[in-house]
């Protein structure tokens, strides 16, 4: 009896682990090994693949490539910080100030743009920000400006688009940590005469650090890997590193160089995320939840 029970345990275990292994090995591990191998290959004159460092040498010798790389990294960090600044008061408002019913309604408003999807919202910003768009049209008709302001296809519109699609991923993790913050801590600090600024920097921010860290990591990853906002809202000068990868794969068909760029992007994003996890003392599995 004991033996058969043990067998049933084993077979259940295999039933669970085999599909998961197939998923992880074939969809995650092998593709990334292939990515790494391809990045070290180039086509020689006769069209055969040979191993070489040329794709990486190309990256460092062409100014446009590494400048785009650096720009993408700095902009992504800046947008992540901006998302934090914009999102924090909203998360605080929903969890600590709004009434329960209003909070539910506000959360509903927050998740609709997420579910609608990035493409539709980016398109919405094109309609709003264009030279003949809604905002210019509105400002001209009430006489604030005479000429349309050039907003679309600039870094400004690109940052708006990146912020719009990512800010929610900052609000929700911060909300979930703030929900467990006991109001009486703030009341006590207030009774003891602490200023709002002190309460904010010494109680609320330290307490919500885990939420801020996971929000930042998700936002950073989404922004650095985004394609639609830089491509559709950014101008000619708003090159994003993902656009270089797309060009290599879909325009010039230099897949090996694209693989090298992809690998560099992966190293950059996981490097910065690893650093953020170390600095904030978090684990990857906390980020997920």
């Amino acid at each position, binding site marked *: 009896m004991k033996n058969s029970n043990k067998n049933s345990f084993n077979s259940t275990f295999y039933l*669970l682990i085999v599909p998961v292994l197939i998923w992880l090995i074939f969809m995650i591990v092998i593709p990334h090994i292939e990515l790494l191998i391809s990045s070290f290959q180039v086509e020689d004159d006769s069209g055969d693949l040979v191993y070489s460092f040329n794709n990486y040498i190309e990256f460092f010798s062409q100014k446009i490539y590494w400048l785009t790389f650096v720009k993408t990294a700095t902009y992504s960090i800046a947008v992540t910080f901006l998302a934090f600044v914009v999102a924090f008061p909203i998360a605080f408002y929903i969890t600590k100030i709004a009434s329960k019913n209003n909070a539910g309604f506000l959360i509903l408003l927050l998740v609709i743009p997420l579910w609608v999807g990035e493409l539709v919202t980016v398109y919405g910003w*094109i309609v709003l920000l264009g030279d003949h768009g809604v905002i210019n049209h509105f400002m001209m008709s009430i006489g604030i400006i005479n000429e349309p302001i050039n907003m679309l296809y600039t870094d400004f519109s690109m940052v708006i688009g990146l912020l719009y699609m990512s800010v929610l991923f900052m609000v929700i993790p911060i909300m979930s940590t703030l929900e467990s913050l006991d109001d009486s801590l703030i009341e006590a600090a*207030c009774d003891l005469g602490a200023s709002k600024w002190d*309460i904010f920097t010494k109680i609320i921010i330290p307490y919500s650090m885990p939420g801020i860290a996971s929000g930042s990591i998700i936002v950073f990853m989404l922004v650095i890997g985004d394609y639609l906002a830089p491509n559709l809202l950014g101008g000619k000068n708003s090159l994003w590193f993902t656009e270089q990868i797309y060009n290599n794969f879909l325009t010039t068909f230099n897949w090996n160089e694209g693989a090298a760029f992809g690998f560099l992007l992966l190293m950059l994003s996981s490097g910065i995320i690893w650093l953020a996890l170390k600095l904030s003392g978090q684990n990857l599995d906390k980020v997920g939840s």
Partner: protein
Amino acid sequence: MIRSLPSSTFYRIAYGTYVLLFFTFLVMPLLAISILAFNDSNFISLPWHGFTLDWFFSTTDERQGFFSDEELIASIVTSISTGFFVAIMSTLVGTLAALLFEEEEFRLKGLLYFLALAPLVIPGVILGISILLTSTSAGNHIEDAFGLDVELFRPSYWLVVLGQFSFAATYVMLLVSARLKKFDRTLEEAALSLKATRLESIWYVTLPFLRPAIIGAFVIAFILSFSNINTTIFLVGSDPTLPIDLYSRIRFSSTPVLNAVSFLIVLTISSLAIINFFANRSSK
């Protein structure tokens, strides 16, 4: 500062204004396209030329409305069926993964769990290109060895399904794990001590408890698939999904039919969200 504490009028007004501005920022793009879907004009934006339903129902060449645009309808059908298969596969594997990582102990568990979480921090572009590279070289090897041309290995419908499944399963796993953490393990132990097999205890005890989370995860996986473009764009073959079709229209030929499609998406999603909102409220 918080509900229970008084604060100055200035502080309350300033804070209220900020929150109002933020939600205006959030709603504005969706509201603008929804209204402009009914604009009697051949351009996607203002000025307002009066109300029309042309962008939904017109069948003329000059104005092809949404319902007569066969390409658009075909891409929506592709997206729905893709989303359906992605949701089934990722719900199945994601749920198994949640059970595996929450309830079993084995060697290399930490490493496997790390791999299962990796799609959270791998940009979708990278997943797309690495799956494209792998399937192409697998296809080439098979063609060299057996002289077979397997469609799955070229950009195609099923490659898109596989690519989207690769990250959707992670989200399912996290959603189901979150509910599994609240599960009282003694219920399973009770089932086992009553001579249920491990499989029976999962099937009759654990899965019914997980049902709401599994249904929720199925919906999320469907939405992830339906709106994905970063991974899909590399894997798509001759039948584009809705986002791919819309993307090329936005780049090359914007007409107000885009407003009409966007309006229908916003309408569907908002209704779903509102139904979900009231369902949650009444269940509490």
